[in-house]
C-alpha cells in the first residue's frame, strides 16, 4: 500500500480538528509567535494548518509527501527519507541542521525550531508511527466532515476522479497532486485554484531531484577527466623540459668536447 491523503476542499468546514489532533498526537505544544513566517499558518509547532480563502473556502496545508521529494534528495546525510509506505520521515539524530530541505521544498513546508539552541527540522511525517501500527493519521481520523480521508494512493486517485465525474460542475476537473512535480501523496480536490500552496503558481510536472541529477551525474566523469587531463599535461610538459635539459647538456658537452679537441690541437 502507498499511504495517501485526499483532501476535498469543498467539504472542509474549517473546524481545525485536524490541527488539534495533529498537535495532540505529535505533542507539539503551544504556538509561539513567529517572526516573518509565510502566512500559511505552518510552524515548527503546527504541522498542518487551515488556510482561509474567500467565500468560505478552507484549504488544509500539510507536507505533500511527494513521490520523488526534493527535500529527501538534497539532504546530505539522509535524515529525511521517503519510506516504502509513502511517508517522508525525519531522523533528528542524523540531521546536521543545514536547512537545505527548507530551501528545496517547492511548497515551503519544512519549518525550523528557531527559538531553540538544539533545533530540528519540523514537518508532517504522515503519522508514520501510527501507519506502522496499522492506524490512519490523526488528522484524517479527527475530521468530522470526511473532508480529508486516508487510503491507498491509487484508490484515492480513483475516488477523486469518481467524485469529479459525479459532479463535474462542482470541481476543477483535476486531482491536484496527481502529476505535480512528479506526483504527491497528499492529493486535493477543489473548486478553487490551489496555486497558493507552493512558491510558484505552476510547479511543473518534472520531479525536482532530476534537475540536480542532470548535473550530479556528470561528477565522476568530470572528476577523473580533470585528473587525467592534469596528469597528462604535467607529464607532457615535464618530459619536454627534461628532454630539453638533456639536449642542452649533450649540446654543451659536445661543444666542450669540440673545444677540448681544439685545445688538444
Amino acid at each position, binding site marked *: 500500500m502507498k499511504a495517501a491523503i485526499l483532501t476535498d476542499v469543498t467539504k472542509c468546514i474549517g473546524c481545525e480538528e485536524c490541527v488539534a489532533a495533529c498537535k495532540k498526537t505529535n505533542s507539539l505544544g503551544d504556538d509561539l509567535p513567529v517572526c516573518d513566517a509565510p502566512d500559511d499558518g505552518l510552524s515548527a509547532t503546527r504541522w498542518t494548518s487551515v488556510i482561509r480563502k474567500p467565500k468560505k473556502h478552507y484549504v488544509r496545508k500539510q507536507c505533500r509527501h511527494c513521490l520523488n521529494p526534493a527535500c529527501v534528495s538534497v539532504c546530505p546525510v539522509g535524515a529525511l527519507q521517503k519510506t516504502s509506505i509513502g511517508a517522508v520521515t525525519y531522523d533528528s539524530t542524523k540531521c546536521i541542521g543545514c536547512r537545505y530541505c527548507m530551501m528545496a521544498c517547492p511548497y515551503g513546508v519544512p519549518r525550523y525550531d528557531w527559538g531553540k539552541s538544539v533545533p530540528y527540522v519540523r514537518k508532517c511525517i504522515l503519522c508514520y508511527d501510527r501507519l506502522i501500527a496499522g492506524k490512519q493519521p490523526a488528522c484524517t481520523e479527527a475530521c468530522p466532515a470526511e473532508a480529508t480521508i486516508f487510503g491507498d494512493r491509487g484508490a484515492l486517485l480513483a475516488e477523486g476522479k469518481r467524485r469529479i465525474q459525479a459532479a463535474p460542475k462542482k470541481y476543477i476537473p483535476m486531482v491536484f497532486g496527481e502529476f505535480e512535480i512528479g506526483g504527491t501523496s497528499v492529493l486535493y480536490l477543489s473548486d478553487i485554484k490551489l496555486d497558493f500552496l507552493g512558491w510558484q503558481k505552476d510547479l511543473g510536472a518534472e520531479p525536482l531531484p532530476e534537475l540536480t*541529477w542532470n548535473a*550530479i551525474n556528470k561528477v565522476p566523469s568530470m572528476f577523473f577527466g580533470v585528473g587525467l587531463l592534469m596528469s597528462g599535461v604535467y607529464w607532457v610538459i615535464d618530459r619536454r623540459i627534461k628532454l630539453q635539459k638533456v639536449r642542452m647538456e649533450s649540446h654543451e658537452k659536445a661543444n666542450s668536447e669540440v673545444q677540448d679537441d681544439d685545445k688538444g690541437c
Partner: protein
Amino acid sequence: MTRVAKVKTVLWFFTGMATVVAIARFMRGLGATTALSDRTPWGLWIGFDVVSGVALAAGGFILAGAVYIFHLEKYRPILRPAILTAFLGYGAVIVGLMFDIGLPWNIWHPLIYWQHHSALFEVAWCVMLYFTVLALEFSQVLFEKSRFQRIYRLLKSLTIPLVIAGIMLSTLHQSSLGTLFIIMPHRIHPLFFSPNQYVLFFVSAVALGMMMVTLESNISSYLYEHKPQTNILKGLCSAARYVFLLYLVLKVGDLAVRGVLPKIFEFSWQSYLFMFELALSAVIPAVLLFIPSVRSTIKGQLWCASLAVAGIILNRINVSGLSMIGTTRTDYFPSWTELTISIGIVSAAALAFFFIMENFPVHEEKDDKEIAGDEKGEELEVVRFALPPFDHSTEVWLGDFPADARRRYSGAFIIAAVLAFTLLPKSAIHGMQSAVVTPVYKALGGDTLKINGNRNNNIVVFNHAKHEKDTGEKKGCIKCHHISKPNDENTPCFECHSDMFQKSSIFNHTYHQKKLKGNASCKECHKNDELKINVSRPCYDCHKEMFAELPAAVYALASAYKDAMHGNCIPCHKDESLKKGKKELAICSTCHP
C-alpha cells in the same frame, strides 16, 4: 604605528565583538541571534561566508596548477601566499558553516551517512578533502625550516599528486556549489536561475580566484611596505581577461538559450540588479583587463580586482538570496549579530594570515642554486618573513614593541567584547522564548492600543482607559504592569480573560441541550427568525441571578474574546453611523466580509 599594526588593531576589535556574539549564538540558538526565518532559512552566513568564501579561496588551486602542472615558474613567488590564503579561506568557510548549521556537532555526519544524490553531500566531501590537501600542501612551509626534514621531504615528494587532487576536488566543489541552486527554480528569479549554474559558478570562481590573488598580494605588499609583485600579477591579469570574457559569453549565452534574455529589459528591480551584477562581475573586468595600462599598474590592478571581487561576491549573494525576494517576499536583512560573525571570521582568518606571514617562510626561496651564498643572509630574511622593516645600518627595529602591540590588541578586543555584549538583543541573552515581547502600537486617537501579538497583523484593539477604570484606577496598574514576574512586562490578556480563546463567553452548548431535553428544545433559545442578528436568547433571560454581583466582580468576569472585541468596536460604530447617517457602519458584514 606601522600600517599592519593599525590593521591588526581593527581586526582584533572585530574578533572581540564576534567572540561575544559567538557565545550567544551557541547558547541561545539561531533564532535569538539571527534574522533567519522559515521564509529565509539561508542568509548571510551561507551567501557570503560559505558560497562566496569558497569561491574567494579559489586562487590556491589555480596557482598551484599553473606552477606545478603547467610549469609556469614565474608565478612561484606568489604561490605560497595564495595557498595560505586558500587554506585559511577554507578554514573560515568551515567555521562559518559551524555557525550556520543548527547542529554543528553533527558536521561530520556526511562521512558516515552517504547520500550521493545530494549536491551538498558532494560539496561537504570535497571541501573536507580539499581542506586536507591544502593543509598538506601548506605544511611544507611549516616544516621547511624545522628539525623534521624527513617529513618535509616526504611532503615535498607528494606535491604533484596533491596538486592534481586539489585541482580535481576544486573543479568539483566549485561547480557543485552552483548545483546546490539548481533544485530551486521555484524560488530563484529566472534571470539568476540556471540549470547550468555549475558551469557558471566554476568559471566565475576561477576568475575570482585570480582577482583575489591580485588583490591580496597588492594589499599585503602595501601593508608590509614591500615592493609589489606587479610584473607577476600582470601575467595573472592577462590570463584572467580571457576567463572573464568566457564567463560573460557563457552567462549571456545561457540566458539566450533559456530564452530569458528579454527579462533583462523588464526594468524591474531584479533586472537592474542583474545588470549591475553583470557589469561588475564580467563586463567591467573584461574590458579593463584588456587595457595594458590597467594590467601593469598597481592602481589599475587594485581597482579592477576590487570591482571584480565585489561583482562575483554579489553574484553569489544574488543567487543564494536576493533573487528569491520576489517569490518569498521575505523581509530578511542580516542582523548586526550576523554581520559581526561574518566580519569576525574574516578578521580572525586575516590575523592568522599575518601571523603565519611573519613567522614562517611563506615567500619561497627562488632556488637554492640561483642565490649566491653571500647574498643569502640579510636581504633574504626581509623578503621571506614578512616582518616590519629593520634598519640594518643603525640596527634599529622600525616596528612596534611587542608589549605595546599586545596591550593595544587586547584593549581593542576587550572594548569590542564589552560593546558587543551591551548591544546584544534581549533574546540573545535570555533565550528566545522568555524574551517574547508583544509589539504594541498606539492606535490613532483615544486611549486605545493595537496589539500585534501573533505578529501576523491581525491586530487586537485594547482599550486602555476602560481597563484602567475597571481595575480600580491607579491602584489597578500593578494588576497588569507588575514587576514580580521575571522577563514579563505586562500580563498577557488571558490571565484575566481566562476564556478568551472561546468564541463567546463560556457556554456549554451540549450541557444546555441535554438539560433542556435534546433537539426538541432548540427553539427555547433559538428563535425562528433567522433575519435577526442575535439568533439566540441572551443568557440573562433565564439566569437572572447571573449579573447581580457584576460591578464588584468585573475583574473576575472579564469578557470573552468576541465580546471584548465587539465591546471595543460596536458602541463607537453605532454612534458614528447615526451621526454621519452611514448605515453600513453598523452592519456586521462591513467588518466581517
